[in-house]
């Protein structure tokens, strides 16, 4: 659960929901990026146990079927982007928990 405090935060945050049609080129690009992103996310899932065991407390970024690990998110993204520049925008990244325990979102 997440509660928000602060002036104006209790006001609705969603301004607008609209449905649009992307151009054919935009659709192709978005579909390709999504497919790559899902492949990277699926790779992370298949290797979840390894990532959890070896990367605790660090930031990981998956691109091109490779795992990039660093102490900061910027560094992890940079490593992946350098190795796979064609996958910028489609990498899967996350911070690996320090310890394995049940989570109630939020923190």
């Amino acid at each position, binding site marked *: 659960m997440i509660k928000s405090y*602060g002036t104006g935060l209790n006001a609705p945050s969603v301004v607008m929901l609209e449905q649009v049609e992307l151009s054919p080129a935009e659709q192709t690009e978005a579909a390709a990026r999504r497919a790559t992103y899902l492949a990277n996310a699926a790779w992370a899932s298949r290797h979840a146990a390894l990532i959890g065991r070896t990367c605790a407390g660090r930031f990981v970024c998956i691109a091109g079927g490779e795992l990039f690990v660093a102490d900061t*998110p910027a560094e992890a993204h940079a490593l992946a982007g350098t190795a796979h520049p064609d996958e910028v925008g489609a990498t899967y990244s996350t911070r690996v928990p320090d310890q394995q325990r049940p989570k109630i979102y939020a923190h």
Partner: protein
Amino acid sequence: MRINGFWHVGPDSTVRPIIPATALGSDGLPHDISLLVDTGADRTVLDFDTYVKLGLATKATGEFELEGVGGLSRSVIVPAQLQFTKAEGGTALVNIQLMALTEATSLGMNVLGRDFLSLFSVIVDRQGDTVCLLHGRHRYVIQES
């Protein structure tokens, strides 16, 4: 409208319901991200990793506190647009004021809160391996077998 998600195994080997989306970074380039379907969250919140990935520090408007089980965490408000792929084709755009956590030890996952989820019927079905959001012409039916 139907927006599909999936059950995703996280680095702690726990399975959680996820909706994929596209967010624009401060450089104007699209980045795909995953958001946890969290009906317990008042607001949609981005974790620190995504905050850095999208370069949101340049778009933040003020600092605020978020409260969770672990206590208070600092965050910023960022106006953003999320793009969702519709199962029937086409794209849904949502303009939303996101919260973004600015601390590395917080959350660890982007959270889709009720500020957004209240627009939809939310299906989180582990037994049926289904995660989806329904709006408009797409509806659900509960039947007794």
